[in-house]
């Protein structure tokens, strides 16, 4: 009983390390990128909230946009992309789902499939 409790704690600790890693891994996007987002302190909500809840925000916005026709831009996917897309040396936008870019960087790390971009644009227009 005692042993299993210890194992459980160890597992929880390991899980925490794994969960915390992308946060430290994605520091790179701010340091290496040149998107508009690198110049501002925080996103539409504090960073820790964005890391955990961005999917909820986008999903909520998508529902009110499609079903109620509300086209405000505060939590829109278009807003994410316009702010987080980096440019390459020639000044052309790099798709946010390209390897190592803002969206793909974390999503491939945690193996969470990114479905947005089978329909939505990956670069600002």
């Amino acid at each position, binding site marked *: 009983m005692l042993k299993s409790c210890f194992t459980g704690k160890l597992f929880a600790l390991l899980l925490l390390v794994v969960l915390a890693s992308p946060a430290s891994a994605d520091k790179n996007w701010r340091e290496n990128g040149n998107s508009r987002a690198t110049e501002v302190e925080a996103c539409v909500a504090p960073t820790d909230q964005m890391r955990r809840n961005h999917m909820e925000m986008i999903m909520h916005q998508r529902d009110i946009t499609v079903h*109620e*026709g509300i086209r405000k831009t505060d939590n829109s996917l278009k807003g994410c992309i316009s702010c987080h897309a980096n440019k390459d040396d020639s000044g052309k936008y790099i798709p946010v789902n390209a390897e190592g870019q803002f969206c793909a960087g974390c999503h491939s790390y945690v193996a969470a499939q990114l479905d947005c971009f089978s329909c939505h644009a990956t670069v600002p227009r």
Partner: protein
Amino acid sequence: MTEKTNLARRNFLTKMPAAAAAATVVPGVVLHSTGAQAAARDTAVSDKVRWGMLVDSNKCADACTACVDACNKENGLDMHKMPEGADADTWDQQKPQWIRTVKLRDITTGRESKLPMMCQHCEKPPCEDVCPTGASFRRADGIVMVDRHICIGCRYCMMACPYKARTFLHENVDIKPELAPRGKGCVESCNFCVHRLDNGETTTACQDACAKEGHHAIIFGDLNDPESQVSKALKKYPSQQIRADLKLNPGVRYSGI
């Protein structure tokens, strides 16, 4: 679903005092809100507006495809071509098409007429009835749409639609249009250029193209507003619903057929 219901409740509660205040500003004066807005919409659409269309088949010119071309361009349907090695006939039948021209021939008199056919935006849409996920739905302002986020691509709605208005997207879309996001595996159909309406415009791409060609066969507007161009035209000219026997009350009416 619960979240949606709560949201509607909240909206209702927050708007209620405002509505009450507006009604009591001047006794005896009723304030109307119009469907058209100048900027991107920030409040939910309501059933005060019902978007609809009147098509005058007599003005629809032979061999003209302006409305079809304009729709394809507006919604990015022209961005993908026939896949390599595909059968041309199959492609012709299956390619994405939100609006098409149809020729009708009266077999007793031989009279031919031509009309554009698209989603008829029924009041009681059969596509919505059969959809297993709720992806096919009718918006409060009468626009029948597909929520691609929850469409599983079963194509039941395509079978149910008596107007053959829907197509299925079989191929990946390489260039994604910003205004009308679309991708492989979903059913799609005319949405009355909903991105335009939500951003304050009051015309559709097909209507603009038809007017530009000088035909003016398509009149679009709010069916609930007696002062709108479409309501006035419907009052003045005889028109009919296609397959009126199904009692679907479509938002698209035709005259001259």
